[in-house]
């Protein structure tokens, strides 16, 4: 406790401020870079997967073999239930294969993507299932092919839901970058753990958390705004 209180003396605060000015801009950049890159790839994989989950469903627009759908669902659930720290270790071979190394900022993107794409797939699934089934049936009554229903009806109709869910994904992934930062990755998480916690500079730890919180707020606000702006159901 004493040690904790000592971390906020004027001298320590001065030191923390210097560290902030020196290290934070780059750490912030690293966090944003990893988050955006990981979210991008998570969407690249998760969006089609989510579409497949909905379209290939027994009652979907293009039913797929039940066994296949069952298998995909099981894999997604498995990936979602592995704790992230363990997942980071488990995917090390894959990370090496893709990035060439398993440590460093870019390498930390791989486990983030592996952890996030099943989550994104579920979010996409939920968004698409929210489309009014009567509209889908109407498209069928107009002689639309399954792919046309998916791309001309279901996707456009769920754009606002997709934007809010992708916002949820990006903020969640940002939280995860702090964890991957703890073991090898860069960013605000790394500063919080390596400097703030390991070297008892709690003021730095708190500064890192505050910056992360602000960052999440910014992404969330922008995402919510975009979602609302894209929604044409609101009379404006």
């Amino acid at each position: 406790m004493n040690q904790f209180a000592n971390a906020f003396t004027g001298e320590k605060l001065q030191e923390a401020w210097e560290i902030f000015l020196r290290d934070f801009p780059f750490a912030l950049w690293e966090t944003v870079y990893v988050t955006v890159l990981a979210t991008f790839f998570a969407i690249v994989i998760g969006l089609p997967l989510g579409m497949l989950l909905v379209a290939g469903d027994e009652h979907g627009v293009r039913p797929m073999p039940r066994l296949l759908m069952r298998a995909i669902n099981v894999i997604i659930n498995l990936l979602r239930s592995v704790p992230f720290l363990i997942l980071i270790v488990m995917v090390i071979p894959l990370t090496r294969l893709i990035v060439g190394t398993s440590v460093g900022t870019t390498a930390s993107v791989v486990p983030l993507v592996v952890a996030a794409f099943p989550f994104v797939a579920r979010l996409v699934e939920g968004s698409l299932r929210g489309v009014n089934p009567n509209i889908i049936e109407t498209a069928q009554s107009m002689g639309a092919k399954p792919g046309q229903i998916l791309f001309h009806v279901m996707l456009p109709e769920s754009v606002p839901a997709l934007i809010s869910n992708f916002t949820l994904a990006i903020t969640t992934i940002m939280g995860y970058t702090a964890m991957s930062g703890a073991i090898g990755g860069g960013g605000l998480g790394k500063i919080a753990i390596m400097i703030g916690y390991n070297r008892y500079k709690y003021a730095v730890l708190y500064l890192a958390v505050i910056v992360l919180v602000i960052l999440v707020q910014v992404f969330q606000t922008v995402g919510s705004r975009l979602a609302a702006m894209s929604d044409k159901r609101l009379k404006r």
Partner: protein
Amino acid sequence: MIELRNLSKSFITPDGAVDALKHVNLTIRDGDIYGIIGMSGAGKSTLVRCINMLERPTEGTVLLNGQDLGVLSDKELRDVRRKVTMIFQGFNLLMQRTCLKNVMLPLRFSGTPKEEAEQRALELLKTVGLPDKANMYPAQLSGGQQQRVAIARALATSPEVLLCDEATSALDPKTTHQILELIRTINRDTGITVIVITHQMSVVQEICGRVAILENGTVVEEGDVTRVFSNPQAQATRNLVYPEMAQGSLQPAPGGQQVRLSFNGASAASEPLIARMAMECGIAASVHTASIRSVGEHVYGYMLLEIPGGPDELAKAVNYLKAMKDVSVRVEVSYGDTGGDGQ
């Protein structure tokens, strides 16, 4: 021409099979505006959804111009659906797309080039009276306007048949009238066959030439609207035409004796029938209930008369009423305990 031959549809539910349609036979001629009316749950939506195979019949066939739709491949069926289009109670427009994009949708589905589709969509929006709403979103339109957009969309692929499932049920009477007027105009101008599903007799009365009455999945009556209106045969039809009857307000008083008159296109209903009977036979009948409507010069409906006295007076009254040559009436007698089976 659309022919439904021995059409049946059962749904398998956890609680057992539901027979939504039972051996339905109907023929709908080209260019007709054909009404299908029935109470909620009668099977109207199921029937109309079988016509474009959104619902596969369990038994029987749907013939479109002699072609059995049940045997078509998915691709052939998609082509048929461009010729048999549909509008719905809930309009079912894409809420995230402009009216123009909504109308263009079926054309895009059929591979029409963008510019051409846009041209056609603009034309159609003009046809339905919304040339200035092209770039508006459905949420910015009233219900009636949204249904107009849906109609434009349904017409985009130049269909031969338009299916309307409760298309006006969400609209107020005035808007209903305008939409029906629009459908009638389109039918007249393009010769499109229209099938109108409704639970409102007034809708059938306003635009349909022929009508089928559906009850519990069975067609209980079918024919020209004027005929069905004037002389409804099935109980279900009477309940629709004269809802007062169904609500039991026409039950005879116990012990009383009553005569039911059916005005079957009588032209002289304005004649003081009751007063004349009182003067000429000395029977002062009282009107128990009346449900009368006039179509043009003719009068249709029912009147339930309470005849005072005993069997003699009743016989006299019946004879008198039957003898009225210039008034086409049907006399039905019920002695207090039956509600009048009415055949």
